């Protein structure tokens, strides 16, 4: 098909503009992933380890958040950051920071759930030993997070992939401003709407390659992690 051929040509002749778009995409999604995981990893681990009040409530909330369509997340962040909203005075609507916030909200429940899932069985294995050694709560968190690191990195990559591929939220809060908040997905949406299907497809190919690379990474890390797992 000629449109695919043209798209591949476009990818190969990538210009500076395209590079900027891809770069911004990566930077926004990477930052969002880091910020989300800063909260989601310890919280996910805590949910796996301890039985505290509101634990069930938190789990239910985070699982529901996961089912939330990105557009709704985008809309909520939009209303929050709009000048008419509670955080309006910071003036970060239609900036990369707004996109980072929206993506963080999107990623948070994913990383939280996957971290909890990774730590639950590990905690079952370790619990007795950690009790016997009288390990403090912080040390416990550190130990379990560290020993579940392969699974957690996989969780982060999953979150990153979702952030990178997401369009509904970032187009609302970022505004798809050329050269400023235009990322891969919003460019794809825009070029599709302009009928520039080959350019849209070219970006799709890049996005696909990144997703592909992420998945290879996930598999590779997974196989590395299995080496340390007790098979009994």
């Amino acid at each position, binding site marked *: 098909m000629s449109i695919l051929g043209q798209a591949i040509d476009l990818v190969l002749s990538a210009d500076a503009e395209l590079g900027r778009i891809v770069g911004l995409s990566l*930077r*926004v999604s*990477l*930052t969002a992933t*880091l*910020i989300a995981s*800063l909260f989601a990893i310890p919280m996910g681990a805590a949910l796996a380890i301890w039985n505290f009040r509101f634990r069930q409530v938190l789990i239910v909330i985070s699982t529901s958040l996961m089912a939330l369509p990105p557009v709704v997340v985008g809309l909520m962040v939009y209303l929050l950051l*709009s*000048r*008419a*909203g509670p955080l*309006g*005075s910071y*003036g970060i*609507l*239609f*900036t*990369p*920071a707004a996109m*980072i916030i929206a993506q963080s909200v999107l990623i948070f429940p994913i990383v939280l759930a996957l971290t909890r899932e990774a730590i639950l069985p590990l905690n079952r294995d370790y619990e007795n030993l950690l009790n016997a050694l009288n390990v403090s709560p912080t040390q416990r968190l550190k130990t379990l997070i560290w020993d579940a690191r392969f699974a957690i990195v996989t969780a982060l990559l999953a979150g990153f992939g979702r952030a990178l591929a997401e369009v509904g939220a970032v187009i609302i809060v970022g*505004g*798809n*401003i*050329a050269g*400023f*908040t235009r990322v891969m997905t919003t460019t794809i949406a*825009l070029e*599709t*709407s*302009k*009928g*520039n*299907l080959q350019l849209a497809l070219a970006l799709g190919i890049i996005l696909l390659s990144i997703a592909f690379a992420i998945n290879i990474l996930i598999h590779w890390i997974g196989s590395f992690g299995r080496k340390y797992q007790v098979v009994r």
Partner: protein
Amino acid sequence: MRFITACCFLLFSTMTFAEDKFITIASTTSTQNSGLYDYLLPQFTKETGIDVRVVAVGTGQAIKIAKNGDADVLLVHHRSSEDAFVADGFGIDRRDVMYNDFVLVGPKDKANFENLEAALTTFSSSNDYTFVSRGDDSGTHKRERELWAAFNLSPQGDWYREIGAGMGAALNMSASIEAYTLSDRGTWLSFGNKGNLDIVAQGEDMLFNPYGIILVNPAKHPHVKIDMARQFSDWIISDRTQSIIGEFTLNGMQLFCPNANPEQNIDVICPSSVPKVD
């Protein structure tokens, strides 16, 4: 700890992207998609050092953004909504900028219509035609609703598809299902996936499509950058910029007619297909 530092670094490095001297324009996809801004704005930035951030959405949404104070300037195409925006105190200093027109597009060889009214009447009284409506409260959608109303037609039934999407999506869909749709000429000319579509009706007074620029009222939203916004507004209606707008072409076709100052004799001839300003 290292992790946290890395996070902060990344966040701030992204934030530093935010240059100080910029204004935000809430505008419409039709102007954006035509490529006019890519052509025009770098010149403004070069002359003034002010960066212009365009958030391109439907006219309805653009007005909402401006009402919330999330933009400094509004540049849209629906006169009565614009007037209401100013009358409600949200905007000041509305000015004409330019115009083009709407066109009815549809499958090339399917039928010949005498005029717009005949086309719309035929659509609504027969099941052989499909009409795709933006359904997104954009300027084009508002105009389309007004057209049906003007001919006393009620667009209802299987043949009338409200897709709730932008002009491009409406054109993409029309091309693939052989349907009719109303488009602004700018988007139509710059659209890259026309397929079997062509213009089936144009040039009538009712299809006149003027664009206006409005400053967001600093009395309502004290944070708006009124000085820079005014600078932009003044710049866009200046004779020189008006000429530049008139010179903007795509595939050899002129897309917009400047009309900020009709008496001013700027050297631009508007396409004959486009209805004249009254």
